[in-house]
């Protein structure tokens, strides 16, 4: 049994705004798309900051809002936008059969508690005992719940009553690919009719920036296009993004009269050990399948190229080959506008691809290097591509429904 997968709801929040119109305006309609980047608050690390959101609109109870940290609020809020958009918010019967696959990290720290400990520990007679004492006295009970990755799904269940099956995947960009892939595979195989798949990240967190810095990934100069960064040492600019999709079996969507944005074609995840050329080899195999599925339609691509060196050089060479051979029209690196969004990466790109197809347009280049060019024809099929910053390669196809 294989069923078509339709995208019937999209929730998006980012530095560009809230909802689809804000993203379309900023990325497709604006004459010269410009990202929103805060270069001062977390200097030397620039970040794409989340727009201010009135969380009470999607998370009405103050008690619920207080039980979450910011990335969970963003996830829960954005999931609500997707459910609204799909027309299923508040439909308790349907929501009780709606399944979740969420990509998430966690580990949010109480920075003030950590600071107190780090300031005092060196002078303590027993450093470990000192840490025990401070943690016992200073940690908030609710913080732990904000550190658990599956509590995004947990909060979505509590706030929006999504109570089918619920799984949370971890593992950076690849988790975001797998979340969409597994939801789609289950729909195709009749292991569920309707899914909420997505992820959320808050870039404005020093504990997250610490990992970026330690991995040697942080871009600390004036923001430039991801395609310009590898020549200058390479680096990532993180962005705050929430992205959730309602994915649905075609029959299920039609039966309830839902309007689809697009059809989700094949989604492929893969891996390599990341020796030179291996990521490109994995992606080449994936692209061959995607290209075949797209038939003779021109294909544009959204990619999560992040600006790392040598990874983005390898990706650009791979993509240039596809463009030169006429297999691909052009690409857009979504991190130029949204920032690198880790667990929100793949759902956000699938959502943006579906949005473009439903509006019969495409996004303008936001790249001063000229690698990204205007589309020759408006695409009716868009590939989405994500190479994890550390590991994992994923690609998918989003197609217009005529």
């Amino acid at each position: 049994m294989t069923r078509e997968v339709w995208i019937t709801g999209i929730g998006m929040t980012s530095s560009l705004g809230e909802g689809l119109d804000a993203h379309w305006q900023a990325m497709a309609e604006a004459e010269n798309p410009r990202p929103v980047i805060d270069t001062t608050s977390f200097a030397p690390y620039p970040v794409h900051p989340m727009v201010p959101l009135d969380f009470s609109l999607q998370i009405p109870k103050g008690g619920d809002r207080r039980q979450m940290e910011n990335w969970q609020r963003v996830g829960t809020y954005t999931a609500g936008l997707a459910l609204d958009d799909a027309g299923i918010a508040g439909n308790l019967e349907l929501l009780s059969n709606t399944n979740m696959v969420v990509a998430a990290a966690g580990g949010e720290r109480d920075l003030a508690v950590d600071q107190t400990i780090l300031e005092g520990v060196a002078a303590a007679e027993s450093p470990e005992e000192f840490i025990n004492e401070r943690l016992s006295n200073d940690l908030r009970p609710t913080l732990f719940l904000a550190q658990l990755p599956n509590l995004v799904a947990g909060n979505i269940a509590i706030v929006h009553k999504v109570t089918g099956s619920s799984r949370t995947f971890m593992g950076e960009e690849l988790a975001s690919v797998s979340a969409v892939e597994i939801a789609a595979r289950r729909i195709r195989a009749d292991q569920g009719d309707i899914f909420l798949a997505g992820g959320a990240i808050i870039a404005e967190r020093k504990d997250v920036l610490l990992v970026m810095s330690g991995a040697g990934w942080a871009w600390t100069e004036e923001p430039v296009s991801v395609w310009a960064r590898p020549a200058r040492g390479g680096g990532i600019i993180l962005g705050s993004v929430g992205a959730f999709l309602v994915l649905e079996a075609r029959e299920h969507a039609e039966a309830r009269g839902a309007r689809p944005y697009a059809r989700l074609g094949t989604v492929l995840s893969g891996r390599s050990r990341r020796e030179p050329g291996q990521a490109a080899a994995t992606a080449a195999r994936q692209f061959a399948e995607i290209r075949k599925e797209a038939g003779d339609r021109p294909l544009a691509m959204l990619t999560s190229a992040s600006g790392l060196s040598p990874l983005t050089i390898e990706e650009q060479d791979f993509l240039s080959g596809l463009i030169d051979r006429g297999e691909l029209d052009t690409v857009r690196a979504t991190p130029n506008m949204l920032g690198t969004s880790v667990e929100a990466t793949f759902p956000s790109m699938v959502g943006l691809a579906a949005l473009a197809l439903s509006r019969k347009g495409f996004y303008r280049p936001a790249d001063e290097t000229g690698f990204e060019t205007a589309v020759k024809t408006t695409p009716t099929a868009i590939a989405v591509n994500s190479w994890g910053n550390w590991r994992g390669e994923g690609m998918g196809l989003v197609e217009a429904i005529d």
Partner: protein
Amino acid sequence: MALRDKRNRPVVAVTGMGVVSSLGTGLEENWEALVAGRSGIKEITRFPTTHLRTTFAGTVDLPNVDLRDLKLTIGELAIDEAVRMSGIGSPGDFPGPLFTAIPPVELGWPARRRLYEAVAPEADEDAYDRMCRAAGLANDREEFEHSMYGYVSEKLADRFGTRGAPISLTTACASGATAVQLGVEAIRRGETEAALCVGTDCSVTAEEIVRFSLLSALSSFKGPPEEAAKPFSKNRDGFVIAEGSAALVLEDYDVARARGARILAVIRGAADKNDDFHRTRSKPDGSAVIGALRATFDDAAMHPDEINYINAHGTGTPENDKMEHFSLDKVFGERLRGVPISSNKSMVGHTLTSSGALEAVFSIQTMHAGVIPPTINYKVPDPDITLDVVPNTAREQEVSVVLSNSFGFGGQNACLIIAAEPA
């Protein structure tokens, strides 16, 4: 002709299993301790426990292992045992995907302290600014690869040569069951003939103990540590945190038979259902747990009457055991009194994200041995929990179909029905 289950899907067999816990390394050591009613819980020696409300745990203490790598190491041990037992593939070449249940990843206090102290302070800089600066200068890729959430499953995939992208997952304390469930679903979809499902968790740190203590989830028993885990007892006062890993090799039944593999068991049903009531508590009417149980029976196309042993989630928290009893009662009715139910956690402790995988392994071994491991430390019965908990001593009894429950924070409820035979 291909064997199909009652819902016309490929039958999913278990052909290999491996386990590491505070009771020992390998199925044999673990099983010997379980049927002897021996506890793996002991005083913590890994770090000072001053100021902590709980000072015992079921730690896995392996010599010469960097603590950062402990969950990877014991995951490898469990997988190695499972893959050898199944005889599948060849070393370093497992013919299917990997589903890994792991806990969230953190940098840890030793690393934080090292970074903080590595550089002199600068003006207008907080502790995190300072650590970020130090981390950038240190450029210690290895340390920060460890803080990738995908690290453990990538390393496992490297070593065992599983196919495609590995999936790292969490459904809190239901994760081990979810890993099995994802493998079952993949085989039923016909995407793969085999899957490697593993859970591995080594979370015994001072900070983790503080966190669970703040949620009043941990036992703070004042007597001997081995008597602290008291599932279903009236004086139960929380779970005992523990470490462990377990792996299961799942295969398409026909493919396994064709290659002459020994079929250890069949996963007949798997389902999960999310609760919408509270972050750490079940809905008082039990509807989500009941929903998960019913969905599992529905998935298996089976009736509760067919179950002859329940491997309980049985954490020993006042809330869990009450709700597990209540929900089982609603689904099984009066017949529940005649079904033995025991908690491996009374001996192993609660291995958190890996517990569902450990308990799946122990459930299968229960069928093979014809012996049900006891619920130990059952001295003060709870009059509100009228279950046959197989108190204190193992029981010889033929078991052919097991229900294994796993519940977690965030409203996660997952159940497996495991049987000796395909139908």
